[in-house]
Structures are given as C-alpha cells and as structure tokens.
C-alpha cells in the first residue's frame, strides 16, 4: 500500500480541524480541534519517518506531543480563568479587543 495514503488522511484531518476552529464556539471544542490539527501533523511526521526510513520524524512527533501536552495544560487553565470571570466558555464572548 502506498504510504502517501496516510498523508492524504493527515491533510484531510488537518483541514477538518481548521474548519472546526473557525465554526465552533465552545472554547473547549475549539481547543479539541486544535489538538486534532496537531495529531494530523503527527501522523504526517510518522509517515514521513516511514517514507524516509529513519526515526527523526518520530522524534519530532514525540516532541510535538510533549509541546501539545503543555499547550493543553495552559490552554485549559486559560479557559477556566475566562470562564470564572465571564461565566461563559464561548470564544465569542471574549471579544473585548473590539470595544
């Protein structure tokens, strides 16, 4: 089987994640969509590793996971903080930059 199929899948998942970030209003769902995009990228890295026959791609994917974990921790803390002050998890409510 052609390893490029994984890449197509990765591109598709990435696009879906991107759309999700734009269309969903619940901050947690938006965040999950970001995670989906990161996972799609990881899939691509793992596939690249296989195509090229060395493990560097897997190492990068590993680092991505660690960074993503950090991001989740901080991101969720921000969501909790915003929720605490605004009583809402909607990203549209946090639009003070305009006013």
């Amino acid at each position, binding site marked *: *089987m052609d*390893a*490029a*199929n994984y890449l*197509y*899948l990765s*591109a*598709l*998942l*990435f*696009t*879906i994640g*991107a*759309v*999700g970030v*734009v*269309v*969903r*209003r*619940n*901050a*947690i*769902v938006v*965040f*999950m969509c970001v*995670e989906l995009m990161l*996972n799609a990228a*990881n*899939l691509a890295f*793992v596939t690249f590793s*296989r*195509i*090229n*026959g*060395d493990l*560097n791609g*897997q*190492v990068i*994917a*590993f*680092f991505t*996971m*660690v960074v*993503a*974990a*950090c991001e*989740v921790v*901080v991101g*969720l*803390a*921000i*969501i*909790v*903080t915003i*929720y605490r002050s605004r009583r*809402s*998890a*909607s990203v*549209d*409510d946090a639009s003070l930059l305009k006013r």
Partner: protein
Amino acid sequence: MINLAISVGQTQTPEAFLFWFLAPLTVAAALGMLLVKKAVHSAILMASVMINLAIFYIAQDALFLGIVQIVVYTGAVMMLFLFILMLVGVDSSDSLTETIAGLRPIAITAAVGFGGLLVSLIGRASIGRDAVGLESANAGGNVKELAKLLFSTYVWPFEVVSALLITAALGAMVLAHHQRIQLRPTQRQLSTERFRGSSLANAAGLPGPGVFARHNAVDVPALLPDGTPAANSINATLEARGDMLNSGVFELGKVDTSAGEEA
C-alpha cells in the same frame, strides 16, 4: 490488538485493509466532532480519532508513539478535557447556529481550497516514491532506537522541553489559582443582604420548579400568582440544554378542571 496491528503493518494487503477500514471511520469521527452539538460527544469522538491514529502509528512501525498516543493523549489529555467540560458545564456556546455573518461560507470555501490544494501537492510530491520502510532503522527495536536518538542528537531539545513542561505546569497553576480579593461574606452578612436588599423577592429563596398539584417535575417552571412562569425556578443547565417544558399549559383557567368532579 497491538500484535495484530504490527503483523498487519508488515504485510501489504492487510495494512491496506486496516487503512481503508479505519480511515473512513477516523474522518467520520472527525467530521462528527464538528457537527455534534454537545461538547461531551465531541470529546468522545476526538478520543476515538486519537485511538485510530494510535493504531496507524503502530501500523507504521512507530510502536512507542502509538503507545504514548493512547496512554498520554487519549488517557490523560482527553480526560483532562472531559474534566474541564464538567467544570465549565453546559451553556449556549454549544449551539451550532452561526452568529457571525458570512463566517461559515468563508471558512468552508477556504478549507476546501486548502485541503484540495494540500492533497494535490502531496500527490504531486509523492508520486513515484516508494517508502523506504523502517526495518533497518528499527533494527534494535523501536523504543531503543528512539531512545538513542533522543539522548544523543536530540538531548538538548529534550532538556529544553522539560523546562517547557515545568513552565507550563507552573503557568497553569498561576492561571488557575484564584485569589480572593475580598473577604468571604459571613452568614450574617448574607442574611443582612438578603433582607435589607432593594427587593424582598428572593428573601425566602428561589421558587421551586413544578406546578403545584398539577405537575411537580424539575423541568417545568413554577407559575407565579399572576399566572406567568417563573424563569428562575428552573436550573440554568436544563434551560441551556433546552430540556424545559412549557408551564403555560398549566395556567389556571386553561386547564380543564372538570375531570376531577366527574369522578
């Protein structure tokens, strides 16, 4: 399952079978994440996508990453998501109706263009290239070989990432730490506030839901003496979910009261 995935990955046809079976499921789950209304459902679908990806990793000779994906991502990170979902609760942000005019068409057009071009580019780049495969790279075992790389070539980034993790943990603690800027009100203060306030409407507590003697379920707003439904007698979450019945039908005069007399 793992052994199956490994053995599938090493043969051509079974891998193709696995891929064509799981890939549509993955895409469907991802799309479902976008389309379902409730965040909890999205999280479950996300978890399923992650598990599918873990299988794909293992199928591509990335055993370590596959395990990490399941243990760390699906196990820890997604549970964290669920936990926060519980904390935040349900509100109107779950609604799927678009409030910003024109955003959705723009997003979908851009995404279709983006995805299409990306696929086209991948196709152009990978045509005529055969995968080398990781048999030689994984000769000493996937975990061992990865560890070799991590602790030699990538040891510096590895250490930096540890610093990042600590910083993130501290940052989360700082962000989530809630400092009271005023004293917690005492029972006496609360009581005073309740009775000396501008209105005595809430002095006796919020009205309970249900319509007395007619309907006592928690999803029905109580009726005020003038016959209007009391909105604050219903739990806000029920209201947000839309699980609220109309109490108007129980209003005095609208309900047929003759039935009891018949008997």
